[in-house]
């Protein structure tokens, strides 16, 4: 797949020493911060994503690594079943810090000045440690890693995917994505039945993470409508981290829920403003045999007109869209850009991307149903196949009741919240009203493990929550 190769202009996640993550844009001539140095990523262009590298002694040149540290020989020496009490016991070594290290800060400084690279310095440190040899192999590995973290900025350029983007945001600025953890995002995609060709309704205040992840799963097929309430579409700038091709961008549309509801009722009540007030029964009977023909006819009629509208929309909203993107992005991505690479200013960068892509792209916002692309109108009339709601500060029941008329019967929906009680109230209401079936309220529990010879255990510090998820399937009420 071509997206495995690093291209100029790509957004990516830069992982430093497996712990620190930043968002970067790969652009010839621009630099990013690695440890204390600024370096240029030019030489990464054309390499595979996942490439590991470090800074050469000159503090600028990137040296590609063969990931030697990842497989040092610890595994072969300490046995899984460490035999008896370890004869190299670290207990006597505690609390002495670096008192056993013969190389002092000035020595290291001198080595640096002499042009020695990070790896050479680490080797020197190990050789000059009085206690290194007496440590267990496990402790040696830990010591080596600690020194490597300090003296060798080992980095990996990671391909932006729902996984890597979600994990990077969760660590860097969790509030921007409503603390939605990668496992919860994974569950939302599965449980809402996201897949190619689906027509998906997303309502989110997670900065676009959900919309982006859905678009990744759809691969430019189907339709993704990012619905919102209020006057202004919430920020979706996380979407730009994915390096989506034009087909994916074209599959994403933003619209107010009011406009969608409006549109849903249009064939029946052309021009009426009270889309939201239509009795729910109207849409549920829509896909049934008698109504079907009408729907078909409408869709057919609307098609040419719809195409025209879409174009008009793209043109007329070109400036608007660009502005919106530039506006909302100042919160998150500019900050990244400033941190990661302070050669181009973040605002310029973002504005340019916005302007470049707004023509083919997605971020077309629509206030009234009449302006919506025909594909969206058809989805509104026939019902969306899948729905993800991730706006924790809107009452789940209120929001779900609002969007349920937009879903096709049997559509899967998934509602994310950081809070249990509002979802519970929503669940009980659905159980009583029987608007949905197979309603489940679940929480994901996720824990990583350290698997090292003789030292295997779950991670000591973990994220305690990834949020709560309510799922179900809409049903057609009895006719």
């Amino acid at each position: 797949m071509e997206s495995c190769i690093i291209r100029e202009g790509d957004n990516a996640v830069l992982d430093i020493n497996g712990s620190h993550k930043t968002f970067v844009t790969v652009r010839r001539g621009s630099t990013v911060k690695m440890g204390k140095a600024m370096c240029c990523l030019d030489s990464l262009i054309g390499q595979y994503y996942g490439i590991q590298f470090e800074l050469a002694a000159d503090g600028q040149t990137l040296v590609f690594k063969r990931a030697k540290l990842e497989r040092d020989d610890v595994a072969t020496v300490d046995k899984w079943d460490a035999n008896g009490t370890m004869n190299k016991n670290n207990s006597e070594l505690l609390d002495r810090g670096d008192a056993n290290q013969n190389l002092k800060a000035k020595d290291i400084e001198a080595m640096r000045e002499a042009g020695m690279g990070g790896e050479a310095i680490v080797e020197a440190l190990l050789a000059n440690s009085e206690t290194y040899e007496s440590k267990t192999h496990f402790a040696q590995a830990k010591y080596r890693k600690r020194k490597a973290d300090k003296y060798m900025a080992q980095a990996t350029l990671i391909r932006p995917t729902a996984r890597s983007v979600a994990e990077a945001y969760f660590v860097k600025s969790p509030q921007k994505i409503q603390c939605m953890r990668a496992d919860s995002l994974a569950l939302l995609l599965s449980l809402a039945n996201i897949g190619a060709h689906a027509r998906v309704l997303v309502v989110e205040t997670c900065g676009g993470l959900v919309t982006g992840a859905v678009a990744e799963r759809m691969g430019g097929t189907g339709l993704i409508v990012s619905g919102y309430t209020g006057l202004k579409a919430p920020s979706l700038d996380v979407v730009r981290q994915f390096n989506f091709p034009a087909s994916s961008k074209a599959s994403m549309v933003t619209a107010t829920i009011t406009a969608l509801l409006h549109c849903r009722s249009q064939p029946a009540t052309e021009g009426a403003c009270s889309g939201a007030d239509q009795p729910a029964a109207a849409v549920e009977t829509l896909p049934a045999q008698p109504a079907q023909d009408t729907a078909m006819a409408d869709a057919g009629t609307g098609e040419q007109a719809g195409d025209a509208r879409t174009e008009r929309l793209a043109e007329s909203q070109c400036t608007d869209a660009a502005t919106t993107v530039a506006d909302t992005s100042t919160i998150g991505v500019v900050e990244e850009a400033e941190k990661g690479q302070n050669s181009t200013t973040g605002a310029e960068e973002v504005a340019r991307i916005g302007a470049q892509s707004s023509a083919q792209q997605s971020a077309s916002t629509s206030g009234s149903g009449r302006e919506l692309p025909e594909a969206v109108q058809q989805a509104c009339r026939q019902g969306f196949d899948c729905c993800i709601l991730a706006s924790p500060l809107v009452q789940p029941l209120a929001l779900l009741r609002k969007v349920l008329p937009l879903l096709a019967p049997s559509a899967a929906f998934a509602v994310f919240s950081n809070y249990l009680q509002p979802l519970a109230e929503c669940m009980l209401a659905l159980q009583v009203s029987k608007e949905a079936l197979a309603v489940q309220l679940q929480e994901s529990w996720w824990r990583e493990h350290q698997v090292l010879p003789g030292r295997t255990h779950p991670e000591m510090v973990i994220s305690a929550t990834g949020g709560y998820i309510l799922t179900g399937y809409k049903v057609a009420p009895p006719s």
Partner: protein
Amino acid sequence: MVLHKEQPLGAPPRTIADGDLVILYEQFDSMKAVYVDAKENIQSRFGCFPMKDWVGKPFGSRMCAKGKSQGWVHILAPTPELWTQVLRHRTQILYAADIAMICAFLELRPGCTVLESGTGSGSLTHSLARAVAPGGHVHTFDFHEKRTEEASAEFARHGLAPIVTVQHRNIEALGFPKELHGRADAVFLDLPGPWNVLESAAACLRPDGVFCSFSPCIEQVQRTCTALAAAGFTAPRTMECLLRAYEVNSQRMVCDLDKADAAAAAAAESKKRKRDGSSGAAEGRQNGGVMHAGDGKEPFVAVYPTAETRGHTGYLTFARRLVNPIGEAVTGSEDAPSVSAEAHIAAQQ
């Protein structure tokens, strides 16, 4: 058809067709898979349903039993998640949390090629197919011949034939077929000895491709992790994913203790009076006056975890195929096999 269908402009909404797999939803915790056969009736605990009535109806419809029975069921469109809940187990299967994590962390998207071993009951296979369609492919293998045949027929019936290929093969003994070398974006193993397959998995994966192994026991994980680096993998991560389900109901809680005490006292008094032959409870309450405005209880929505839950399914171990730089001389020789495999792949692409 388990997956979404393309919906071109002007196409009618999808309805139930003869031969379709549908999910018959009777009630909570009672669902079954049904292949619609317009010539047959289906007997459920809620009555007898002639399936010809279903054809042409939208998915999600409520269907009434024929005759005098007041029963009804709902017919849902199949999804990989629903299928996982209703399928007949040929082996132990993977559940929602693991499946979701596998698809997400293998970074699947339309167009990807993914290898799976073993096929088992095909639970995960449906989700993999959904994630890589259209344009991608799932190559799935099982060492058990009968399972392979059953799975193959099932995938065909579910419209997955263009996306999924099932083969009978002992992957642990033989590795993946050579033809797949350098062609996979992701590999998933659910085998007793995944460490035996690491070199083959590495040979199949493109640089930076993702590997995942599911193992119930920690000893399997330990062995696998020890062998990962030597086989040409990097960035190993082992994790557990579990779901905790919650139940809800409406309950009443004492919120005003004084009022509750007073109400209890009044009730006892009234009961006593009744026993003594004096005026009835209703009257006694009337006489009591202010104290009986309420019983001090208020309703609330109680939510609590389901009492029993899965405490473990297995460990998921992920790793990535090591990336070597393109266009640089290969240095070092300790990992010669993987390097050459990789060079081979790089050359292909």
